[in-house]
């Protein structure tokens, strides 16, 4: 039953102690970095330094140049997440309900999942152009498989007794799907939402990095082109901060939707 489903991520100890140690870990790492560069142990040309990176981000924010790029990346990620989830969930559902289909498609799915996404990027650029859709497509290829496997697992794992019970209580096939299979799969789907979200952003940024005129990936690749390590780290930092903020939102949503779990 529900016991077999994965635990809700984001659960775990919280409170002032955790917050303190979180801040402490970050502060120590940054201080160490800054000090090593100041002492010339590390070369600022290769690794930049936290103060410069912070300054750069502040500059991007104050001039407003960041927002346009960020918006594009978020738009691509969101579209990739929605399209990939829709495709993955429907495919997972169809194959989870039909052992025949699952057996037929099994080798193909494994094969497709093994394709490194980076080699797809040039193809997608060719097919969908330099705009957002080639990035969305890349994000979809990543999100699809995470969502597909979770949904498939969730449908296959639905408790036999729950299914038998609602059937005895008079459920039709459609009602069975609605009242048992979907909620059962949702546990798995939400548990993989965090992973999918991360993958969607990876897909978008990698796509931008390989060929685009806007987005965080573009910013990072431009900086790399001029050996501007500060720009590269600043781009990565912004990306990281955005992921943490969006994840927190997803966690809240997840806790609400899975509130029936003890």
């Amino acid at each position, binding site marked *: 039953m529900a016991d077999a489903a994965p635990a809700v991520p984001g659960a775990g100890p919280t409170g002032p102690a955790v917050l303190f140690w979180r801040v402490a870990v970050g502060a120590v790492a940054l201080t160490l970095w800054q000090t090593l560069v100041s002492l010339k142990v590390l070369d600022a040309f290769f690794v930049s330094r936290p103060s410069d990176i912070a300054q750069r981000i502040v500059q991007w924010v104050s001039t407003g140049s960041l927002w346009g790029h960020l918006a594009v990346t978020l738009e691509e990620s969101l579209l990739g997440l929605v399209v990939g989830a829709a495709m993955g969930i429907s495919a997972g559902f169809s194959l989870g309900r039909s052992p025949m289909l699952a057996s037929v498609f099994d080798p193909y799915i494994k094969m497709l999942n093994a394709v490194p996404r980076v080699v797809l990027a040039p193809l997608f650029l060719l097919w969908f152009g330099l705009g957002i859709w080639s990035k969305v497509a890349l994000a979809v290829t990543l999100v699809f498989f995470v969502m597909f496997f979770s949904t498939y697992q969730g449908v296959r794992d639905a408790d036999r007794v729950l299914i038998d019970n609602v059937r005895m209580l*008079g459920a039709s096939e459609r009602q069975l799907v609605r009242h048992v299979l979907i909620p059962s799969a949702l546990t798995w789907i939400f548990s993989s939402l965090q992973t999918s979200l991360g993958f969607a952003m990876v897909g978008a940024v990698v796509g931008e990095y390989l060929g685009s005129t806007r987005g965080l990936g573009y910013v990072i690749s431009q900086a790399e082109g001029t050996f501007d390590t500060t720009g590269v780290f600043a781009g990565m930092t912004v990306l990281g901060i955005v992921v943490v903020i969006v994840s927190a939102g997803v966690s809240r949503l997840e806790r609400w939707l899975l509130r029936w779990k003890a």
Partner: protein
Amino acid sequence: MIALELERVSRDFTTPDGRGYRALDDVSFSISAGSFVAIVGPSGCGKSTLLNIVAGLLAPSAGTVRVDGEPQSGLNRRATYMFQQDALLPWKTVRENVALGLTLGGVAKLEAQARAGAWLERVGLAAFAAHYPSQLSGGMRKRVVMAQNWILDRSIVLMDEPFSALDVHTRQQMESELLELWEGRSAESLALRGANGAQGDTRGVDGARAFQASGQRKTIVFVTHDLEEAIALADEVVVLSAGPAAHVVARHTVTLDRPRDLMELRTAPAFVDLYRAIWAVLRQEVIKSQQPAGQPRG
């Protein structure tokens, strides 16, 4: 009147290594409407298989099951089923779980919720209507399951060791509550159903029959490995042999008076005599089931 009739029912399974395995062999018996029948047998003898066949969740390999005289095909729409494991939907509240059978049958949501509320009151869980099953104790969850089954007012209730996971005292409490419910001892039972009683079940049973059934005692088939529980609850105890190829080895009528006081019953002389008589038969089967299998594995 006969509610359930099994005629030469057998069931075969294929083991993972491809060999055939006969779980039930030529089982025949009938159960009259409104009686409480317990099926006992050693562990693994196919009691649950038998119940699943009666429920229509499993098809017999040979033989026929008749429900109210009609040969059964597909799910048994005159029965509900209390499973050994927890079968409440964890993502629905207690009230939604109790109302589930009604809403599945097309009863309007508000009405279903109201009737579920009345049932929760009856099993003493009105205060927990908005809780999720994971927030309740084992005994409370069993009460919810009873309400979920009884609210449909089907004429047959199948029970597969429903209380086996509970501690001894909670278990006895549940057994008493089950008997009260079945005997209709609390007077509200009829008032509760009201004029809408016939709408509870719309599949396979016409309104008149469902309405008639609500005035009658339900037929209960109660599977257990605990002979004490079987005698304490039932009108009749059916003993199954050890598997494979389990069959009926004995049937005993339980002549104890009703209503029964389960707290006192187990030490009454009549109870002890019955226990001795049935145990003499069951004991042989339990010993057989504990002997190592005839063929070496692999």
